[in-house]
């Protein structure tokens, strides 16, 4: 009997757990270790943040789902990985600390034959002074953050109803932050809610971003086929913002926030300030800070993890200039180059480099988006990693029949811009592949035939449809495996 341990129960970890158990059956053990008791469908947090959904609609308890599937679930925090074991353990193991229940606070070790690290990111609010829901800004990164953002947004709306002007500042809260898509979506939804209440004359809504040009979204921008033209996403994004009455500040690295102002540096090296009444700024992401030790309990964290705390996998990490980046630098099977029974899935893997061109101000501040790996790619990676592990266990072979390079897989981004079957709209963008491949597609970097950029009710229906479909799938209800990532 083999034992597969999965760290994390987000989109990638949860998908990996369900796929692994389905493929391996009762003969093998699948263990999920996560400090969270709930699964959350992160894309719908935006709707929680504007009061259109309750937190219960975007989350559910993990324990009953895992019990039904025969997956062992430990609500605990993974502290360290010991891939070689040690004097007390022959096999590789993970040390964990329980965060809830009878065992709360207790530490134990969990050995494994295969380890899938899908811990996701640490929301690094501490990297920007004054950032975060405990300080001066809001967040929609988790359902409780989004609920808190809605409480604060209501206060601003109430003030506007009394005739008070309000400035909303939405965007990235760190010079290297990613997930522009989520922040962009939140800005559009705030504008929609303000207009719905006929308060737009009193609202000053701003988008602040570390992108060189709007529409970069951490993937170096894209070209889309639209109205008889091949159009850069810059045009598409600016047009949507203008339509929703949102002004923008680009090339901005937010460095500090206080109760009333955001302090940021632009790529020219100048320092600026922007006042706000309500701010939702996405933090920088980092690895969760797990350590790794060898059989002699020597620290090998640098060998297993990259400097940002994400796990190294089968990518080409040799530093090289932007002009020399290749699609083949990106990993295909997400296997650790040091320990062949360890994999990293979703946001937990260290990308070889960014997708957007690195930029630096004359003061040395790096201001550009880091690569997004959320949603669809996370789910796909979780699926193929679990499928490969199951293949290795069942056949005893070391090959990997399943591959999913971000330089080969496509993705869709559905940015809702309002809610309601008739009034709700969304911008739908698809790119294929996610990482530009300038060798294969020298003209546009991607397959232009697969690239879409449209706005309309259909997008909103899709977003709603996907919410219910993916919640159904994550609950592992009948025929869940038929639904693709």
């Amino acid at each position, binding site marked *: 009997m083999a034992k597969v341990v999965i760290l994390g129960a987000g989109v990638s970890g949860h998908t990996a757990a369900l796929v692994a158990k389905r493929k391996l059956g009762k003969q093998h053990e699948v263990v999920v270790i996560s400090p969270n008791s709930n699964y959350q469908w992160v894309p719908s947090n935006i709707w929680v943040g504007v009061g259109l959904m309750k937190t219960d609609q975007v989350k559910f308890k993990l324990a009953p789902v895992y019990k039904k599937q025969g997956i062992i679930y430990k609500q605990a925090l993974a502290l360290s990985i010991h891939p070689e074991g040690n004097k007390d353990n022959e096999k590789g193991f993970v040390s964990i600390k329980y965060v809830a229940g009878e065992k709360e606070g207790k530490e134990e070790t969990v050995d494994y034959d295969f380890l899938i690290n899908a811990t996701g990111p640490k929301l690094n609010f501490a990297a920007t002074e004054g950032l975060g829901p405990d300080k001066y800004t809001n967040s929609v990164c988790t359902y409780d953050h989004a609920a808190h953002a809605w409480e604060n947004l209501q206060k601003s709306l109430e003030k506007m109803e009394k005739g008070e002007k309000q400035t909303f500042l939405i965007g990235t809260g760190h010079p290297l932050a990613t997930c522009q898509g989520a922040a962009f979506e939140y800005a559009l939804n705030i504008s929609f809610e303000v207009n719905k209440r006929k308060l737009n004359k009193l609202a000053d809504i701003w988008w602040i971003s570390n992108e060189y040009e709007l529409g970069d979204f951490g993937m170096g921008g894209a070209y889309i086929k639209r109205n008889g033209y091949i159009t850069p996403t810059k045009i598409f994004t600016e047009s949507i913002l203008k339509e929703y009455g949102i002004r923008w500040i680009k090339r901005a690295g937010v460095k500090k926030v206080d109760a009333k102002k955001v302090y940021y540096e*632009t790529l020219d090296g*100048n320092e600026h300030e922007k006042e706000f009444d309500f701010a939702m700024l996405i933090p920088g992401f980092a690895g969760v800070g797990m350590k790794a030790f060898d059989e002699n309990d020597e620290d090998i964290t640098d060998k297993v993890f990259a400097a940002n705390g994400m796990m190294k996998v089968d990518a080409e990490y040799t530093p090289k200039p932007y002009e020399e980046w290749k699609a083949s630098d990106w990993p295909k099977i997400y296997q650790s180059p040091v320990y062949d029974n360890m994999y990293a899935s979703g946001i937990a893997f260290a990308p070889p480099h960014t997708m957007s061109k690195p930029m630096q101000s004359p003061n040395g501040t790096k201001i550009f988006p880091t690569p997004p790996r959320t949603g669809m790619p996370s789910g796909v990676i979780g699926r193929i990693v679990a499928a490969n592990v199951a293949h290795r266990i069942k056949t005893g072979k070391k090959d990997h029949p399943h591959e999913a390079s971000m330089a080969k897989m496509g993705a869709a981004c559905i940015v809702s811009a309002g809610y309601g079957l008739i009034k709700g709209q969304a911008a739908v963008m698809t790119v294929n592949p996610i990482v530009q491949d300038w060798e294969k597609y020298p003209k546009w970097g991607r397959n232009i035939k697969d690239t879409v950029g449209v706005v309309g009710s259909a997008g909103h229906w899709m977003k709603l449809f996907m919410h219910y479909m993916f919640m159904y799938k994550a609950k592992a209800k009948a025929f869940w495996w038929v639904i693709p990532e």
Partner: protein
Amino acid sequence: MIQNFKINIDNNQKNIRLMAKSKEKTIPYSNYSYATEPTKFVRFLRVCFSKQLFHFFHLNLKIMKIVVRGHS
């Protein structure tokens, strides 16, 4: 290159201050003024049921193809 950044961003900041005065009025040379805007007809098509119903199935199919083709 850095000088170009400086000029662009100085203009950007200037335009931002100008834009803050009015949303309705187009401020010439502001970055806001260079953005495209949909016409009434385009806005109508965005909520036109038959067109959007076609889009719904077309886009779902397109996304499904991209996802399935993207991994083995």
